[in-house]
């Protein structure tokens, strides 16, 4: 029988070791694996390389792992919301590799699709292109960008089932299904966990074959970086 369901974030992440390369889903604070991040902080695993579009804020998301100095390197597209991050970066405690957002997303997909590399025009002529192979197709120049290798991918979904099938909600989908396909071991935390057969097969975003462990998360804070509203007329 499929044994993908684990009790909680601690059980799901217990074999993540120092120096691991982990991918973390989410865009800003939207759709981040809150429970797993908390578990990693409590476990105290060190020298992590984190592949994540952003680096959280000072006291939430990946910012929590930065505060405790558990991160050796961030691979991200935008890291600009975090004072502690800036301090560690400027002091040389933290390494950062910046990657265009579409390249980051597509390199995750490449891993999940068994494609060793992809071509993208993003970054041609910029410092991102330094040291990279470029190639022309139909008169346009592209960079060769390699699929990611990581030890673990940790994602957050709205609904999941015992087979590891995942459904995401609204823009919390973002990088989550891409990273779910890209982990050597993929861990999914979900708001709602169902028996196999309870989700509609047409509505599944990530087929369970890509997910190794799944658990029902709890106490989601779902913090919002910028609450922008309009007034009722």
């Amino acid at each position, binding site marked *: 029988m499929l044994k993908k369901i684990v009790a909680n974030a601690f059980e799901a992440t217990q074999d993540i070791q120092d120096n691991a390369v982990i991918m973390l889903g989410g865009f800003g604070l*939207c759709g981040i694996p809150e429970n797993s991040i908390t578990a990693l902080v409590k476990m105290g695993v060190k020298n992590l390389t984190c592949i994540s579009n952003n680096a959280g804020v000072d006291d939430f998301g990946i910012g929590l792992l930065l505060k405790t100095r558990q991160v050796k390197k961030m691979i991200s597209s935008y890291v*600009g919301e975090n004072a502690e991050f800036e301090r560690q970066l*400027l002091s040389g405690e933290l390494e950062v590799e910046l990657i265009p957002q579409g390249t980051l997303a597509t390199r995750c997909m490449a891993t999940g699709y068994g494609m060793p590399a992809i071509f993208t025009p*993003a970054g*041609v002529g910029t410092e991102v292109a330094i040291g990279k192979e470029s190639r022309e197709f139909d008169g346009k120049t592209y960079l060769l960008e390699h699929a990611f290798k990581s030890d673990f991918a940790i994602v957050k979904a709205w609904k999941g089932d015992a087979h590891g099938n995942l459904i995401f909600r*609204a*823009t919390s989908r973002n990088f989550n299904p*891409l990273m779910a396909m890209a982990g050597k071991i993929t861990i999914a935390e979900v708001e709602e966990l169902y028996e196999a057969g309870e989700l509609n097969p047409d509505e599944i975003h990530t087929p369970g074959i890509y997910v190794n462990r799944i658990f029902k998360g709890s106490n989601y804070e779902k913090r919002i970086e*910028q609450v*922008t509203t309009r007034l009722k007329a």
Partner: protein
Amino acid sequence: MLDKFGIAKRIAKELQDGYYVNLGIGIPTLVANYVPNNIEVILQSENGLLGIGPFPYADEVDADLINAGKQTVTTTHGSSFFDSAMSFGMIRSGRVDLTVLGAMEVAENGDIANWKIPGKMVKGMGGAMDLVASAKNIIVAMQHVNKAGESKLLKRCSLPITGLGCVKKVVTELGVFDIVPEGFKLIERAPAVSVDYIKEKTEGNLILEGDIPEMILD
């Protein structure tokens, strides 16, 4: 001279019915407020949303529903969600008709710099490099000069480049400029701004052909 709302208003005149549009953070986001009533424009957010609606009412705020600027938004009729790879797939494959973004510098050959200032904390390029490398029609919305009063319409960018030869049009508080092979072609002056003043504030090659009309913002 235009304020930021005026710049957004002027750019909104470039929108055509049925356009798919990606609006960057800052002035570009304001363009959404000036879409003419008689046309339909669909806004793309590169985190994974087609059909951005207005900001939510306070009781509608949804942490799972944000735009690429991490602001809470809503959907509209016909919206769809997708992952970020498909989102940049749309951008790379040329499905987005118009991209509007801000810049620190634009060069007369269409180069753009908008992601990094050497010596300052680098926050990252986000989706900007993907957008400028792929979009078929890019309009830059920005102030004409920087805080030191120096022109941002240059012969050559001095800051690290975001993308090469990609900008098609620039709208500043002083005017509208098409990027043509020879440089910045002044198309329209902002209200009460003289050609001479624009000349003075533009370092890159400025092309003046015939009488330059003052823009009409209804």
